[in-house]
C-alpha cells in the first residue's frame, strides 16, 4: 500500500509543479496543434480516404508530442538531485516509474482530447464506429506509450544529447503499438475493418511493455 501511496504522491507533486509553472502542457499543446496544421497543409482533404488519414495523423502527432513530454518528465528530478531523494525512499524504485508514467499518461490524454476534435474538423472526418473503440484504443495505446517513454526518459537522463537520442530509441520500439493503434482508430473512423484483433494486440503489447519496463527500471537509475 505504501508503494502505491508513494507513486501517487509523486504523481500529485508533478501535477502541482506543472499547474504552477505550466511549462509542459502549454508547450505540448502548441507543438501538437502545429503538427496537425502542418499535416493539414501537407495532405489536403480529399486526396486520401479521410478516415485513413486522420487515424495516422492522430497517432503521429501523439508520438511526436510524447517525445517532448518523456524527455522533460525526468529532467525535473535533476534539479537539486531530487531523483536521489526519491531513491532514498524505503520502497522498490519502480514506484518512481509508476508515478511518472501516471503523470505522462495524464499529459498525453489531455493532448489527445484536444487534438481529436481539431483533426475531425480539419480533415472533415466523422466517425463510423462506436466511440468505445476510440476510447479503448486511446487508453491501451497511451498506457503502452507512457510506460515505454517514461522508461526511456529515465535511461537517457544522464546523457547529454537526450533530445536527439530519445526518438531514436523510442520510435523503433513503439512501431508495433502504433500500427495496432492506427488500425484500430481507422476502424473507428471508417468502420471498414474489425478492431477487435488490433485491440487485443494493444492489450498484449501493454502487458509486454509494462512487464519489461518494471524489470528494467532499476538498472536505468545507476550511475
Amino acid at each position, binding site marked *: 500500500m505504501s508503494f502505491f501511496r508513494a507513486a501517487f504522491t509523486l504523481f500529485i507533486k508533478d501535477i502541482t509543479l506543472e499547474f504552477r509553472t505550466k511549462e509542459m502542457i502549454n508547450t505540448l499543446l502548441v507543438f501538437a496543434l502545429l503538427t496537425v496544421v502542418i499535416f493539414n497543409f501537407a495532405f489536403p482533404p480529399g486526396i486520401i480516404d479521410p478516415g485513413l488519414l486522420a487515424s495516422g495523423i492522430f497517432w503521429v502527432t501523439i508520438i511526436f508530442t510524447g517525445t517532448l513530454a518523456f524527455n522533460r518528465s525526468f529532467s*525535473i528530478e535533476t534539479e*537539486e538531485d531530487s531523483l536521489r531523494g*526519491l531513491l*532514498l525512499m*524505503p520502497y*522498490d524504485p519502480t514506484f518512481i516509474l509508476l508515478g511518472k508514467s501516471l503523470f505522462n499518461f495524464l499529459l498525453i490524454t489531455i493532448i489527445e482530447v484536444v487534438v481529436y476534435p481539431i483533426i475531425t474538423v480539419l480533415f472533415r472526418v466523422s466517425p463510423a464506429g462506436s466511440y468505445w473503440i476510440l476510447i479503448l484504443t486511446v487508453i491501451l495505446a497511451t498506457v503502452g506509450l507512457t510506460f515505454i517513454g517514461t522508461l526511456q526518459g529515465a535511461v537517457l537522463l544522464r546523457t547529454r544529447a537526450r533530445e536527439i537520442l530519445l526518438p531514436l530509441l523510442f520510435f523503433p520500439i513503439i512501431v508495433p503499438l502504433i500500427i495496432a493503434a492506427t488500425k484500430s482508430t481507422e476502424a473507428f473512423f471508417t468502420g471498414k475493418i474489425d478492431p477487435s484483433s488490433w485491440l487485443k494486440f494493444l492489450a498484449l503489447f501493454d502487458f509486454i511493455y509494462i512487464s519489461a519496463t518494471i524489470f528494467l527500471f532499476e538498472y536505468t537509475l545507476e550511475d
Partner: protein
Amino acid sequence: MTDSEVLKVEKLVKKYGEQYALKGIGFTLRKGEFVSILGPNGAGKTTFIKIVSGTTRPTSGKVWLFSKNPEEYPEMKRKVGVLSHDTFFYRNLTGLENLDFYAKMLGISQDNALRWARIFGMERNLGKRFTEYSRGMKVRLGLARVFMAEPEILLLDEPFSGLDPGGVEKTVEIINQQRDRSFILITHRIDIAARLSDRVLVMQSGKFIHEFHKPEISMEKLQEVFK
C-alpha cells in the same frame, strides 16, 4: 554483524570507468556512535555515503543495514536519513510543500515535519518558494527533512556549509541532543569533528588512512594529519 552494529560494509569497491572512487574499504557503525569522516576533495567520502544510503550500487563489496541487505529490503532505508550537497527539494514548491511531499512519501505526520522545521528555525520561511532560499536556509530545511523521519542512522554530508556562525552552533547543539541515534558526519570542519565524534576516520584516494578513537581525538592531532 552483532546486535550493536547498525551498519556494516565490507570490501567496498566503486569504479567510475577506470577510476577507483573506493578501494575495498571496510567500516562498521555501532548504535549511538558518532563517526566523522574527514578528507580532501575527491577522496571518496560522498561516494561512500551514496553507496551506504543505497542510492548508488558498489562495483563490488557488501552493505548491511541492521543485518539486512538494503537492496533486498528497501524498507530498511526508512531507518536512514541522508543530507547531501544537493538538497533533493523542488525549486518551484514552497518549503512547506517540499517537506510535506517527503512526509507524505514516508507516511509521516505534517506535525512532525513542522516541529523539526521549527527546531531548525525555518517556521517563518516555509511559505516561500525554495528558489528564494539562501544556502543556509536550504541546508536547515534539508536538516528538518532528515530529522522529521526520526531515522536511527544519520548520514550528514557537509551539514554546516552555508550556515552562519550562529547557525553552525545551533545545528551542532541540535545534533548533540540527538546522540541516541548513530551518525556519520562528513565535514571539512575539523573543530566540529573533534567536538562531536566518538571516532574520526581520515579518507584519502578511496581508502581510510587514519583512525582516531575518542580519548585521542583532538584538534591538534587532526590538524597534524592534514599538514
